[in-house]
């Protein structure tokens, strides 16, 4: 059994859909972190079968829109003095800005690069989004 020590002060992102832990890890730039971090992949879960977990031994700014986009069922626990002091409930964001980029080669975003990349939610279940500019529909993080 792999053992990761509990943290005194920091953040635990739990119940991440298995396979997306690395995506979250990289998005939060944890691969360059100077504090202790742990990425646990394919951990056993009664509810999910497998899940990914990230433990961060520091309180950092987290883009909850991004986490909601990847997996709204993930849980974010803020830890102080070894105890959970806050649980953040994630939601599928209605609009996401500069998190995903449009892949339509005909979209204006493919040639002009100085403005925000904005996507609007189309279908909450599928987590599909529509590009603000060209209306192209994408499912950035499909259910695996």
């Amino acid at each position, binding site marked *: 059994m792999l053992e990761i020590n509990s943290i005194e002060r920091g953040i635990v992102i739990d119940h991440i859909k298995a396979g997306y832990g690395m995506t979250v890890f990289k998005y939060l730039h944890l691969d360059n972190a100077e504090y202790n971090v742990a990425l646990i992949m394919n951990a056993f879960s009664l509810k999910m079968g497998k899940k990914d977990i990230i433990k961060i031994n520091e309180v950092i700014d987290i883009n909850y829109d991004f986490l909601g986009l990847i997996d709204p069922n993930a849980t974010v626990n803020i830890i102080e003095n070894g105890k959970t002091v806050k649980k953040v409930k994630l939601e599928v964001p209605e609009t996401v800005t500069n998190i995903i980029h449009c892949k*339509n*080669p*005909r*979209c*204006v*975003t*493919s*040639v*002009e690069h*100085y*403005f925000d990349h904005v996507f609007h939610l*189309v279908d909450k279940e599928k987590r599909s989004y*529509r*590009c*603000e*500019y*060209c*209306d*192209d*529909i994408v499912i950035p993080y499909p259910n695996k």
Partner: protein
Amino acid sequence: MLKNRCLIDPADFTREEFREIFDLAHQIIADPEKYSKSCEGKILATLFYEPSTRTRFSFEAAMLRLGGKVIGFSEPNSSSTAKGESIADTLRTIECYADIAAMRHPKEGAPRMASHYIQMPLINAGDGGHQHPTQTLTDILTIERLRGGVENKTYGFCGDLKFGRTVHSLVKFLSNYEGVKFIFISPEELRVPEYIREEVVKKKGIPFQEVDQMEPYMGQLDFLYMTRVQRERFFNEEDYIRLKDRFILDTEKMTYARPDTYILHPLPRVNEISPEVDSDPRAQYFNQARNGMYVRMALICKLLGIY
């Protein structure tokens, strides 16, 4: 209130706001002379980053017939774009000179993006294979003048429905009206984009069919909207050649249509409608072009806050 608003997508205006524009267009057609000085002292900028004949001329003729003046460019090589200027900077500069602008761009969403950087009214005159809302105004005005209104009718769309921006805008607009039905006639590769099928047609519960034959469905249609397969939208020339002659409307196919089925086309036509169909009174595409100028006159007036 339409003053200082932008028209980028048909969804930008409400039914009531479109009604104001159509009512004014009908009044202008009835007495064009009355409106010949409405825009005196105003300047329209036509910013065409992609070649166009009728849309640019239509906008320019509309402004000139309202007594206004026109500045602009008809291809990007004759503008600062050739020096690498961004769309946003071009628009911010033009805003210093003009009161209103019409913009065509090959990239989808370019007018929407540009509208975030300026205060003056901006009209999307076509963005890639995406939207062309003033063609929709043209189409709707023509439908109203032919059949009184757009409700309770079956519309056939034929040709390139994937990249045909006029189709996307018109479907989006018509989807707000009661009793409309759509029959989409195209090769499988050129069917309407997912966002139109899922987000517009299905979401609004509009009955529709996607078919790849024209003749069996002609008798059901009130309007048949023909479109050209556009060479400039294909990355692959072979695909264009394979698909371009798939649907050609000729006098033989017209025999399947009802006496009150009208044929519309945004023009330019290549070969998808045989010239012999032009003399059929049901062929209304050149009347559409005339209506386009009148409805653009109405739109310019409304966005400038005149009337």
